[in-house]
């Protein structure tokens, strides 16, 4: 949630190798291998558990190697407990939230970075300040609002409050302050371009890499969001994956744990695939966005 905020720190550019002085010794590799193992093992074990029967998962020496039930469990989770529908819902929600956050954040970030207007400093501090407000402070009235509007258990109740985020505005502002020369904007104005033209022909092209990174970060966050969706949606109605998982997990012992963990797998694998293919860019984006002053 609030963790994807960013920090003030004097940092040049990610990936700059100047600061890396020493070659790593064997101990470094051992320690890093342990860390990588600890990071990856629960994900691997999720796959293992999802490929066994429910009885096997809760038997004493826990299974370490994949079984043969993966396809059966997937089919069951997909058809019987509707993880398929939850997957579609989550994709729609995360996609809409990412698109709109990127668009609105770029516009606002551009205004804060390059356009002179009254109250800019104060308003920017306000944007930053809102990042520390926990969602707990708004969920009770929000719940009342969406029930009054008849939006309970409807996806828009999750999408609308997330249309744009302070994090995104600040992120784009930080990027554009450095990446977009004022002269470029002024030259475009001299040529008689109005603001929307400038956005389209000057700002968007310059901002594209940051927009891509922000899009991925927001997508991951919206995909994994739990607290508010858990209140606004129900596992049996219109759940996102996280809400559906909460429904599966509740009541614990009577439930087929292999199916629960198959659901967890369904919710994790799409993002892991994204990470496997775009990992370098995401890593670069987190660090660049997170630490630029």
């Amino acid at each position, binding site marked *: 949630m609030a*963790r994807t905020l960013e920090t003030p720190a004097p940092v040049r550019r990610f990936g700059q190798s100047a600061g890396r002085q020493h070659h790593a010794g064997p101990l470094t590799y051992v320690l890093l291998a342990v860390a990588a193992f600890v990071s990856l093992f629960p994900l691997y074990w999720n796959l293992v558990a999802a490929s066994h029967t429910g009885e096997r998962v809760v038997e004493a020496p826990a299974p370490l190697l994949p079984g043969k039930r993966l396809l059966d469990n997937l089919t069951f989770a997909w058809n019987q407990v509707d993880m398929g529908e939850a997957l579609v819902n989550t994709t729609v929600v995360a996609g809409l939230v990412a698109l709109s956050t990127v668009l609105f954040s770029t516009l606002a970030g551009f*205004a804060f970075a390059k356009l002179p207007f009254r109250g800019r400093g104060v308003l920017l501090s306000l944007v930053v300040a809102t990042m520390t407000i926990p969602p707990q402070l708004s969920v009770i009235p929000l719940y009342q609002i969406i029930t009054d509007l008849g939006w309970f258990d409807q996806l828009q109740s999750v999408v609308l409050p997330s249309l744009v985020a302070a994090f995104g505005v600040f992120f784009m502002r930080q990027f554009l302050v450095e990446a977009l020369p004022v002269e470029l904007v002024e030259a475009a104005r001299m040529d008689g371009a109005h603001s929307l033209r400038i956005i389209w022909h000057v700002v968007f092209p310059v901002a594209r890499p940051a927009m891509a990174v922000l899009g991925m970060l927001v997508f991951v966050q919206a995909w994994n969001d739990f607290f508010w969706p858990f209140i606004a949606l129900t596992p049996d109605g219109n759940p996102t994956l996280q809400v559906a998982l909460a429904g599966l997990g509740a009541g614990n012992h009577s439930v087929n744990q292999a199916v629960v963990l198959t659901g967890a797998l369904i919710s994790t694998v799409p993002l892991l695939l994204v990470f496997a293919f775009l990992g370098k860019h995401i890593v670069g984006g987190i660090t660049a966005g997170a630490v630029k002053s």
Partner: protein
Amino acid sequence: MATSVRAERDDSLPPAAPPSSPGSRRRRSSPGGLRSRLYRWDIKAIPYVFIAPFFLTFAAFGLFPLLYTGWLSLNRVELGGDPTWKGLENYTDLATSEFFWNALLNTFTIGVISTVPQLLMALGLAHLLNYRLRGRGFFRVAILAPYATSIAAATLVFAQLFNTDYGMINGLLDWIGIGPVDWESSKWPAQIAISVIVTWRWTGYNALIYLAAMQAVPQDLYEAASLDGASRWRQFISVTIPSIRPTILFTIIVSTIGATQLFGEPMLYGGSVGISGGSGNQFQTLSLLMYEKGWVTGALGQASAIAWVMLLLLLLIGGVQALVSRHNRKKLGG
């Protein structure tokens, strides 16, 4: 820093016309006619148009609910009912409620045992990743992988690993010769298990943030330290850590905020008794208590009061942190 100076200067040379009466504006814009009036409007209003979506969304879904929650906290409100004024009663009720103090203490202890090891390990990992490495892309992506996992998925997996009867962790402990640990109903083991989930998900993320800061530390600082005969450990303590202090402070703040809001991990870890934070409330956090008050008991006024206590706590923590960092800066400057 340099950017904010420039930002202020931009404000002082705006091409936009100073505020003036409608009459004079019409006269001045007449040479260009409609086009130039539109242009001027474009220049003056467009920044506000661009930032409007954020502020409108925040007003509707952030600020208004925040204030309304504050008002609700001064009332008795049942789920679906009308509020009746109670003044500060909800708050005084909290002060005498053992559940509240229990939840507050749990939030604190789980927060500490998840945040401190998490950040220390992240520092260590970042230091290791900062060496010249083979396979550095793999290591980075691997330690970031838990960040791609949702609270729900991670908790469900760990709940199995930590299961007292058949979980792999007790299996491992048994193999080493340590008796089985009750990871569910014993207070500290349960809190540790929940902290492990939080730590697992966030360590890699913080490590990468530290790594980026470390890579910006000027090389000559290390060279000077080497010339003075400082060991690598000494360099880490005396050069790296002070140089990335703002980043460390930032991660402390963000982790603290996250820990204050902890909800999904304890709820899902507790399974059927998750909402009350375990059979004996042994890992009930403030967020869980708020949810239980609001949506199980239906006492929205009480729940709102808990939400506002969380805000006050965050303000307090933020204030302390600001004081500490100012104190540190002064010490360095003096």
